[in-house]
């Protein structure tokens, strides 16, 4: 009976997009690792095979299970992250993995789903009002706990993903100034790196003066504007200081490449340069499957993991890139649409988290590959090589599809 209901009620559009992305991902991994002797595409095939039982388990678990045990799942996930500091395996300077024999697993890939469940559970209480400062603090604490454990691994890429939870909280009533603050912070950060800090402070002063005279009478508070300017100035100067004095050279370089300040194509600029060449040489329809010279020449490092989109760009061209981007965007919008029609707040919040997390990965990854975002290690969901990532994203998505399929029963 249950099987019947899931089969009938599951959102086949999402499942179809999911399957398309996984298959396209594997084809590109196959192409980029054809010449490698490490058995990359064979292993990925095994990982994909493993998702089938995984999906069945996720779908057959009782729909109430996730809500009921969200806190426990979250707790276990936090423990698994904390345990890395004791039992973790260090690969390339990052302590992100548990090693069982030759098999490694990355708990941070699963923590995202756990955090989403915990946040959804917390917000599902109808008593919770995010206008209340205490509630804001508690909700943000749920988000920041895993971040605190992930940052020191160090895995800034995974930690960055959690910033999207602000948008989810905003949907559930978090005051808008959180979003504005976040937005302005990012803007100031980028401006400070591009311009001189004093120029940025002058611009801020100009904007504040305009707001003061053009804005509504309520906003004409000299004291508030003054404090705001002081905070902005302090932030701008500290960004400048941190960038010049606390960042390591390789951190600075990652930003400088984007800002066009460093041109060292053999050193730090190599990855971005080569991935741009690979994508840029694709043209309208690409060089064809298995025909990418950049891909075959092995010029793009980490091509089967973080840089998998370069293979899409080179071998499938603009057409292929557009198809992949549309598939992803379609999935995100579909999940948001499904989330909005959920009957429980729990599943709505969770759905939002799913869309947000997948979207952030998608954007940060492709933006990095095409050279508009600093080099930061974030996988492309369903595409990039790696078992933990694939399974983490699959679980994340299918828990939501299960909730969505269950909604009928809730009537």
């Amino acid at each position, binding site marked *: 009976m249950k099987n019947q209901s899931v089969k009938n009620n599951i959102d086949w559009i999402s499942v179809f997009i999911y399957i398309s992305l996984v298959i396209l991902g594997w084809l590109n991994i196959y192409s980029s690792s054809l010449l490698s002797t490490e058995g990359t595409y064979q292993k990925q095939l095994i990982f994909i095979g493993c998702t089938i039982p995984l999906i069945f388990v996720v779908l057959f678990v009782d729909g109430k299970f996730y809500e009921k045990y969200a806190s426990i799942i979250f707790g276990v996930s936090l423990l698994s992250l904390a345990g890395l500091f004791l039992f973790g395996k260090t690969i390339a300077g990052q302590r992100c993995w548990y090693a069982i024999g030759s098999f490694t697993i990355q708990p941070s890939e699963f923590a995202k789903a756990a955090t989403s469940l915990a946040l959804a559970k917390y917000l599902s209480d109808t008593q919770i009002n995010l206008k209340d400062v205490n509630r804001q603090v508690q909700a943000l604490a749920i988000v920041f706990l895993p971040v605190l454990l992930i940052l020191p691994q160090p895995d800034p890429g995974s930690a960055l993903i959690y910033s999207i939870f602000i*948008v989810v909280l905003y949907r559930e009533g978090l005051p808008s100034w959180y979003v504005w603050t976040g937005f302005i912070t990012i803007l100031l950060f980028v401006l400070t790196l591009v311009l001189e800090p004093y120029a940025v402070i002058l611009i801020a002063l100009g904007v504040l003066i305009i707001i003061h005279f053009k804005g509504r009478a309520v906003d004409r508070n000299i004291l508030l504007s003054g404090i705001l300017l002081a905070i902005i100035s302090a932030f701008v100067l500290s960004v400048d200081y941190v960038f010049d004095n606390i960042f390591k050279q390789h951190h600075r370089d990652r930003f400088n490449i984007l800002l066009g300040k460093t041109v060292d194509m053999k050193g730090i600029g190599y990855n971005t340069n080569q991935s741009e060449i690979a994508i840029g040489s694709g*043209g*309208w329809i690409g060089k064809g499957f*298995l025909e990418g*010279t950049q891909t075959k020449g092995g010029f793009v490092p980490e091509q089967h993991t973080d840089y998998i989109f370069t293979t899409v760009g080179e071998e499938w061209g603009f057409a292929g890139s557009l198809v992949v981007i549309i598939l992803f965007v379609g999935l995100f919008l579909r999940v948001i649409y499904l989330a909005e029609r959920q009957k429980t707040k729990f599943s709505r919040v969770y759905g939002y988290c799913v869309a*947000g997390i997948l979207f952030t990965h998608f954007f940060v990854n492709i933006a990095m590959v095409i050279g508009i975002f600093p080099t930061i290690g974030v996988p492309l969901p369903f595409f990039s090589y790696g078992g933990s990532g694939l399974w983490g994203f699959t679980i994340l998505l299918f828990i939501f599809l299960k909730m969505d399929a269950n909604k009928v029963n809730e009537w």
Partner: protein
Amino acid sequence: MRKVLLPSLIIIAASLLVMRVFYLQIVDDSFKLKSENNAIKKQYDYPERGYIYDRNGKLLVANQASYDIMVIPREIKENLNINEFCTLLNITKEDYDKRIAKAKVYSPRLPSVFLSQLNKNEFAAFQEKIRKYEGFYFQKRSLRDYEVDYGANIFGFITQVTEGLIAKNPYYNSGDLIGQQGVEQSYEEILRGIKGVKYIQKDKYNREIGSYKEGKYDTIAVAGEDINLTIDAELQKYGEELMINKRGGIVAIEPKTGEILALVTAPSYDPGILVGRQRSKNYTLLYHDSIAKPLYDRGLLAEYPPGSPFKILTGLVALQEGVINEQTTFMCHHGFSYGRGRFMKCHGFGPHQLHNGIYNSCNTYFAQAYMLTINKYNNPGKAVDVWSDHVKSFGLGQFMGYDLPIGKKGNVPTSKTYKKIYPNGGWRSTTIVSNAIGQGEVLMTPIQLANMMATVANQGYYYTPHIIKKIEGKKIDAKFTTKHETTIDKKYFPPVISGLFDVYNMGTAHALRVEGIDICGKTGTAENYAKIDGVRTKLKDHSIFVAFAPKDNPKIAIAIMIENGGFGATVAGPIASLMIEKYLRKKITRNDLEIRVLNKSLASEYAKLGGMTEASAIESTPKDSVMKAKIVKPKAEIKNIPVDTTKEN
């Protein structure tokens, strides 16, 4: 409203990505080319380097085959038998690991040199098995093969280009060879030729599948051209033999053409040691020898106060300015007083005219002549500038423009120099009188001294000294066939030359005569000081000698500088006589001189310098000379040669 934020973000972000991808793939088409470049391999064909001959066509530098073992790190197979591999190449396992690591740092997918410059024998055993070792291949190179064991400073050497040069000059790639120092550097472009390049298309499996676009862009290598130097191999060899156990430089020039006949620096080294696998070890040894400095070409770089040979110019300028004539007489009382209680010592005594002034090297005579020159004008500044221009017309105080890559300007003071030293003015002819005898601010290199003698021999003109005689099928630079006239009228030269001739007949070089050859010459001595244990100590003088011969129709002008050699006629003088006889007669009659010079070792003198660098050890700065003039401590030459020479024996 709150529902709209995430979908809007998604749509905006996705549009941004699509726009950027569109820009990369459709708008900017430079990436296609770059990707083709990645997939195209360039294979270079290095032409043989041109040979180097001497002025008589004797082969000095040829080529030999050598082999570089190249590696592409990521193509090395895991089952490589490293032990066997290392045994064949005669390297250790650690060495192997180090070299592979270095290659990986450069690039795991691009070839880099694993082991360079193997000779035929070293390579033979390896060649049979190289097919077994995937990721390794060899590149044939041509290396220098030196036919002679002298002339290292003239030839320079071949080395791998530096990263800095690759960035500056697009012709060179990593691992390319380039000439450094000597003619290998100054005639690099002629000797090296132009390397050919083949573009090879690679398929998606990184295999080579033939030439790119039917070889449309391929170029054929152009062989390097042979050159003839102006060097006389026999003279060069003889000069280097004479300089054994001494430090210093010899420059010999053919006055009529400006051709450099010999350019000796001592100590030197066998050019052959900078070839092959021992190259870098040997180079390091030479480079770090900061005491003897075998890589420092003293003939071109050593700047010293010229001492007495400079009196030739003092006399010529005074004649040209009309302040003296041949009959002008100055009395010498073992020196003379000038200014307020100052005294310049001299070994001479009695009346001196220009003629005996030169052959006795009388300080008094030339000091007086110089002061008259400076006092001719009301303003000493103007006078010094007039004098300075005369002197500079002999090639002093400037890079002369010869075709070797190194040099020093020397120094000729002008009014500006003294304005700096005496900002409040008040300097007069007496203040700077030590210039008269080459002890003031004047500094000269041996090649400038030789050129000065060539100019005197030519009675008023010189050609820029040069070392290139002939380039296969090309003319040499026109600047080497352009006459430089001095500001001294021709008529003033014969009396000076006659004085220089009597230096050998009656003067300071009396004992150095070569029967049947009329030599004109002049001894000289340069004071020098060293800091030994922090104390400024006067060391034995540098020995200087300049000469040309024969007196009529001169064939060779020569300058010799021997560090710490003492009085000019003791070491430098005999070498000048021997070199001149060797060049003009091709044999030696003054065997006594030859034996004396060959046996002469200054090692004990140099030992005093200890572990110091020559640069800190030798300081004969212009300022000191000015001070010396003030404190009345003029330069005196040793009086009498026969005594001195026997003493040396």
